[in-house]
Structure formats: structure tokens, C-alpha cells
């Protein structure tokens, strides 16, 4: 049995960041990198399934990313993933979610897992489409925003619940293999101690090129993508202001502002 997890190393903004010279992203120097929060939950879900299973289950994480993502993959290995695969090639920087999904699908074809998990979205780009697009390329059934899951590895189908608006839930049965995008809160991700992360540093990460998974240069990067980021911009500053002084002064100033908004004469 095998579960494949698509993971991503995301970027978080540091304080006082600057936009890159080409205007299409944030300067690298101001980014703090980490494993995407949603992927932490989907990995945990797979590891829990593995731990609860009597039959052997292999948990494989895969990331379409340059070398710097090895850190996130190692964290996954530290948390219980058995293998890590990273696909990268020259000219892949401009890949959009569809192109990434094409690569993930190629990996899924060669790995032939019983189930594929992805996070609902990534915290830095928030496209929320990579997982579902992968299912489209594979022609597998899929479901998004899974908030609880009942799945025994090797079973023909899985039962799960997914979140809807207004606190409603869908209970769904799905044929396997399937692609599920996992929502935050489905479990409590374990803590990867530094010791386990260090030990994972010794584990190999399988690095592959597009050719290794049967794709060509045109399948990824700008030429394999349907969309392109043109510009990154910072919205105009709002009118927030910090009211200083003691409680009485603050209250007086607050009342004044409210009156201004109401249009009352002061």
C-alpha cells in the first residue's frame, strides 16, 4: 500500500520586506521558508493511517521545487514519511499550478499510490488548484476541503467529510485511488523534534528531472503554464491609527472619531 503526499515549501514574509526588482514577487532575502501548513496536516493524516494499519503502508512525499525545498522534505521524513521525491529541471521557475499538477500526475503514474493527498491550498500563493488539477490529469476521482477521513489502506473506497459553508458538512464515499485535498484541523500534526530532523538529514531525497518522469521541457515552466503572474503590489495604506495616551484620553479621542464619522459637529 502506498500514499503519496504532494507538499510544498512555502515562503512567509519577514518584517519590512521589499518587492523584487522585476516587481513580480518579494525579494528572496525577506522570505522565511517552511513546510506549507496544510501539507503538515495531510502528511499527518497519512502517517496516522500508516500507524493504524496492520498491512505495511509506504508514505511518499513529493515536491515540485528547487533544492531549497529539501528542508521541507526532510521535515516530512522526520515526521514519518518513508521516502521523499523532488522533481526539478531548468526553466521550471515560471510553472503555474496546472504545470505543477502535470508533473505531480506524472510522478503519481509511476508511483501508483492507493491514495494521493494534497493540502487544500498553499499559504503563500493560495491558488487551491494544484491538488484538484492533478486529479484531472490522472483522471481520478477527487474531493476538496476534507475535514475528516475514514480510510483503510488498500480499500476500494474511502469515507470522508468535507466542509461546506455555514458549518455544514458533506459525508462522501469516494472510489480509490483518489485525490483528496486536506483541510487544517483534520488532526493534530506531530512535533518533529530537532533530533528527528537531524536524523532525517541523513536520509536520501530522490531528485528527478522532467525526463525521469516521462515529461519534456514544454510540459512545465512558462511554456507548460496557462497563467502568468504579472505584478505583485502592496495595497494603499488604510486609515488605521494608534490612539495614544491614558484610558480617558483614548476614550475621548475615540468618541471624537466616531462623531467625525457620523458627521456630527464637534
Amino acid at each position: 500500500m502506498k500514499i503519496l503526499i504532494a507538499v510544498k515549501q512555502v515562503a512567509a514574509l519577514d518584517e519590512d520586506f521589499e518587492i523584487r526588482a522585476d516587481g513580480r514577487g518579494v525579494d528572496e532575502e525577506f522570505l522565511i521558508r517552511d513546510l506549507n501548513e496544510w501539507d503538515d496536516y495531510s502528511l499527518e493524516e497519512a502517517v496516522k493511517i500508516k500507524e493504524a494499519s496492520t498491512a505495511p503502508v509506504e508514505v511518499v512525499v513529493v515536491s515540485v521545487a528547487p533544492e531549497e525545498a529539501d528542508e521541507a522534505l526532510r521535515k516530512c521524513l522526520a515526521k514519518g514519511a518513508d521516502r521523499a521525491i523532488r522533481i526539478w529541471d531548468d526553466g521550471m521557475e515560471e510553472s503555474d499550478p496546472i504545470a505543477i499538477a502535470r508533473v505531480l500526475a506524472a510522478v503519481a503514474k509511476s508511483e501508483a499510490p492507493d491514495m494521493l493527498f494534497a493540502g487544500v491550498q498553499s499559504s503563500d500563493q493560495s491558488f487551491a488548484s494544484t491538488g484538484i488539477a492533478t486529479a484531472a490529469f490522472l483522471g481520478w476521482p477527487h474531493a476538496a476541503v476534507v475535514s475528516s477521513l475514514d480510510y483503510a489502506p488498500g480499500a476500494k473506497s474511502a469515507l470522508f467529510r468535507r466542509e461546506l459553508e455555514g458549518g455544514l458538512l458533506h459525508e462522501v464515499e469516494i472510489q480509490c485511488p483518489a485525490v483528496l485535498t486536506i483541510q487544517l484541523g483534520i488532526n493534530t500534526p506531530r512535533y518533529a523534534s530537532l533530533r528527528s530532523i537531524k536524523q532525517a538529514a541523513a536520509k536520501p531525497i530522490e531528485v528527478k528531472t522532467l525526463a525521469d518522469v516521462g515529461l519534456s521541457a514544454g510540459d512545465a515552466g512558462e511554456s507548460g503554464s496557462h497563467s502568468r503572474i504579472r505584478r505583485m503590489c502592496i495595497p494603499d495604506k488604510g486609515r488605521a491609527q494608534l490612539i495614544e495616551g491614558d484610558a480617558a484620553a483614548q476614550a475621548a479621542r475615540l468618541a471624537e472619531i466616531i462623531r467625525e464619522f457620523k458627521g456630527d459637529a464637534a
Partner: protein
Amino acid sequence: MSRTDAVTRILFESFSTAEVRLFYALGYTAIGIFCWGVYVQIRKYRRGAALILDGSLWSRAGDMVGKILSHRTVDRRDHAAGGAHRLIFYGFVLLFLGTATITLQYDILEPLFGIRFWQGEFYLIFSLVLDIAGVAMLGGLLYMMYRRGWMRLPKLDYTRPDRSPGDPDFLRPEYRREDWAFLWTLVIIGFTGYLLEAARLVWLQSRPDVWDTRWWSPVGAAIAEGLGAAGLTAQGGGVLRFSLWWFHGMLALIFIALIPFTKVKHIFTAAASLMVRDPKASQRLPRVPETQATPGVAKITDFTWKQLLNLDACTKCGRCHEACPARAVGAPLSPRDVILSLREFANATLESGTLPPAAELGVHGKSPGQVAMETLWSCRTCMACVEICPVAVEHVPIIVQMRRKLVEDGAMDPLLTKTLQTIHKTGNSFGESKRKRGSWTKALPFKVKDARKEPVDLLWFVGDYASFDPRNQKVTQIFAALLHEAGVDFGILYDGESNAGNDVRRVGEEGLYEVLAESNIAALEKATFKSIVTTDPHSYNTILNEYPDFGGKYEIQHYTSFLKKLFADGKLEVTRPLKLRTTFHDPCHLGRFNKGYEAPRDLLNLLGCELVDMKRCRANSFCCGAGGGRIWIPDPVGSEKPAQNRMREAAAIPGLEVYVVSCPKDLTMFEDALKTTGNEGKFVVKELIELIREAVPARQTETLPA
């Protein structure tokens, strides 16, 4: 030969050979059982993990003997118990030496070499000394009975804060029964000893060598007079002596046989524990050996033999129970019960002939003998328990070793998990950007040197709270100004500095600690400086005591001793003495850990402040509750926090104006507790640095700006 030269006590007088043989047979049986018990105990300790002690055994033995003879550790914070125990100890030792003397003569020297010395004047003095020793021992024992029976000391209450009524190990009445059995056995042995002595005197009253020297055994003689007056005849005395002889003898033999199986074993285990104590147990935690597959302690056999011995040394005196800040505020932790629980577990699993399977050796959990994670996470690692333990039980390293296992399993508060991840990611617990670490310097009218770029005399290790917490930043800026005004050539590491790791290590996240320590040592190695100063006692402790294990050996001072020197050298001067009534809170890591009690008090004195110490001060200072990573774990809602408990103690000082702290975390904890205990407006919490600023007004001189 004068009449007294021959005086002695004839052993087994009027016993038949068969009776003597019976006694010897029983004696050897008792010794056999004793030896078997000792073997079982040693086998138990040997089932623990290996540990190599450093330092010479001789100096360790010398230290142990010194502590035992002086009873220094038993006497601390409880002179009555210390005095009574001293009486029991010296009485018991003398009585034991007396018995050994008789054996030496009767079973060794006389049969082998024909030497007799237990007679004449020596015998008479011997009799007198042992009579007095018996009185001392009985006096001590009776006082201990009074303590247990009538004083109802809370520290001798065995109910557990980490169990609920109804749990099988909540009350533990067997401990009380054992305590009383121990006391009564010794009392009866002592008392029948006197009666026996008296009965012999009555029996042999017609023999002048016995009767005329009877007052050399004053207690026995007095009882003999009484028995005689009550009408006991010589013949009656003989019968009484015979039966008492056997009763007293049998009780003593049973006592000896049971030593290794009862609390009496503390005679040996406490001494051994004192001898193998780790003199740096408070300051530095043990590393995880490279060879160890999983960090920390999961099974009872993962404890070192020394720790298993520690468990057996505990005498339930309750001093740790009394000193523990977590216990004081009702948290489910008593250091005493951690030790006793593990001891019960070790006795149940490691005393049998074969070692049970590993699955039955797990010490984490809620079953009897196991320790619950709530208990382990309640600990503030303030070292109050280790510091006061009279028999050198080292509770905190045991707790941290168990936490290491919990961290490995991720069994901790989600907020703590988040904090550890944050520290890993950003190098500080505030989740702030590394590059903002030195931002507090921007408000200063002078530039603080970057010690990585230019050499400095003094490297200031700032620490997380002093760098990022807005309230503490004000103190940090004052300290920088004081250094600047005193003409000190100093610098900081800016974003090269990370959390020092002291508390991360005490949480039990050893891997992250290693990363932090190595990263800071690498940054320090790149800088050129003569010595280090810090305002943070936590950083101070780990850099001073723990970084050397990672190759970082530095001269480091807490700011209190550094500023004291600046005053002494005339670099700083008090021009506006403060007439304030203050009390001083000894930070755990400065005071109890590293004995830095005097410098802050000297500074307060220098500032002209009146210092009124709280009852719990210096070595007995009461932790603010932030230690051991607890600053990152919320305290349960509705229960008292240690800092609030402390504020109430301070509030009882009449006319208190300033509660003085010298630790960034203390400032945060106590300013909060001042408000939540309703003491705001009655007195204030201030950093000592702030008081110094008031007494040493800023110089409006050459400083301005860069």
C-alpha cells in the same frame, strides 16, 4: 589486679551451649537475609543505564562524610528535625560501634590472639557512653514520634497533588505504617536494652564487681533501683533478664535483616546518594549521548544507576514538597511524589530475579508508579527541590530526562509546540524577524557596536526578552546608556545572536538546544571580545555552565556583578541616593543556580535603598513560574500562579515601595502578577537597572548622536 580491672560483662552468662549456638545461627541467618537484600538492591541499580562519575572517589567520600557528620543538609530549614536526627544518628552510630567493639573482642581478637580489652576502666567508660547514646537516640526518636503524631506538618502529609481521592496510590497508608513501625522498633529496641541492663543488675546484685559499678550505666542502674524497690528479687531478675535478652536480641536481628527491604536502608542509600551527587546538577543538564537511539527516559531502565539509587535515598522528609512552587499553587506536581512513584515502580519491576519485558517498564502514564505528563509539564525547573534535598536526590534532571521523551513524542501543550517551532524558524521565541533583534538600539542617541564587525572589550549577550519585549527593551536601553556613560567599550551580536537555549533545554528539546548553542557559539567565535555580560540570568546560566560542553568557554558575568565593579572603580557614581523601602527577588538562575546573592543586594545598598528580604529569599527564593519553558505554556485558568503567590508574600512587607527584580522574565511575570493580585498602586515592580538610573542620572554630555 585491682577489683575494677577485671570488671566486664560476661556474654551469654549462664547460657547453655545449645542456646549460644542457636543465637549464632539466628544471627547468621539475619546477616544472610541482610546480604541477600543488599544484593537485590544492587542488582536493581545495576539494571539502570551506565554512568561514569567524574572526580575522585576519595574527595566524593570526604564530602559525603563531612555532610553526614555535620548533618548540615539535614539541618537546613528545619533545625528541630535536624537536631533530633542528629541525636538518633550519633546515638545509633555509638551503639553500633559498641556492638562492633564487643564482636571485635569476643569473636575475633580473643579467639585468635587471646587479646582482651573490653574490661576494666575501658568497659566502664564504654558502659557510660553507650547509656548516654541510648538516651540521645530515644530522645530523638520520641521527638520524631511527636512530629508525626501531633504536629501534623503539611510536608509529612503523603496525599498526592498529582492523584485524586480514590486513586489507589492517593493516600499510601503503607508509608505511614512503615514510618511508625520504624520508629517503634527502634524505640522498643532501645528501651528493652535499658530494661535488660537493669534486670541483669538486679539478677547479679550480689556480685560486687557488677553491683558496685552499676552507676557507670546510670539509666540501667536507676531502673534497677526501681525494680528492686518494686520487689523484684535476684532470681526474678534472672528470669526477666533471660526473656528480655532474647526479645531484645531477636528484635535487633530482625531489624538488621530488614534493613535492605525497608526505609531503614536510607542509612546506606542516603550516604551513597550524597557520595555520587552531581555538584553541577543545578546548573547544567546532561547531554544526550551520541549512541543513544531515542533521547530521554521512556523505561525505568533508561534511568542511570545513580538515579535509581537517588529514588531509594528519599526519606519522604517533604522538604522538596514544601519548596516546590508548582505544588504551592496546586499544580499536579510534588517532586517528592515523582521520586516516590518512580521508586515504587522500580521496586515492582526491578527487584525480581528476571527483568520483565520492555513493554512493562514504561514510566510514562497514569497507572500507579508512573508519572503523568501533566506532572512533568508542571515543573518550572527552578531547582528548589534539588537545592534543599538533604540526601542529594536530583529531581529536576530526572524530570527533564522524562520530558525529553515527551518532546520526542510531541506530547506537550500545543502552544509550546508552536513556540519551539518558532524558535527553530526565527531563533527567538517572539517569532520576530532575526534582523529586528537589535532594533532596540535605534532609540539610543549613540551607536551600539556590532561585535562581529569590530573588536570590543565587552560582548553583551542580550537575550530574547531583553531584545524583543517592549517593556524590557526600556531596561535594555538604560543598561546600554549606563555602559556608554561609564565608558565601557561594548558591543552586541545583532542578528547573529539567537535565543541562548537555556529554557529550550529545560523543556527537554535537546536537539533544538544543540542547534541554538552551536549557532551562538559560532557567532561568538567570530567576534573579538574579552568577556561577556548579560542582563538575563537564564542566558547567563547556560553560557556559563552549559556552553563549555559544546566547546564554548567564556568569561561571563551577570550585570549585577559587572555594575557593582563599575561603581567600585568609580566609573558610575550615585549622585541621587534613593530612600526607598525595597525587597529583592532572587532570580532562580542567578541565585539558587549560581549563588549570585550578594551583588544585587550590594547594589541596592549602594543606591541607598533599604532592603527587607522576604522569608523565601536567596537559596529558598520562590520561582516566578516562568522557568523550564513554562513562560510559553499558559497556566490553568482560575488557579493561583506562582508569581501571584509571590506578590502576596511581598505585599505583606509593611511599607514596601519597590519589588526589585534583576531578570527580564521576572519583570514580565511580576508586573502582571502585581495587577492580577490587586497590588497595583501599593508598590511597584522595577528592574534594578531602573533604580540605578534613578540614582545615577543620565549625563547630558558628549553622548549625542551618531
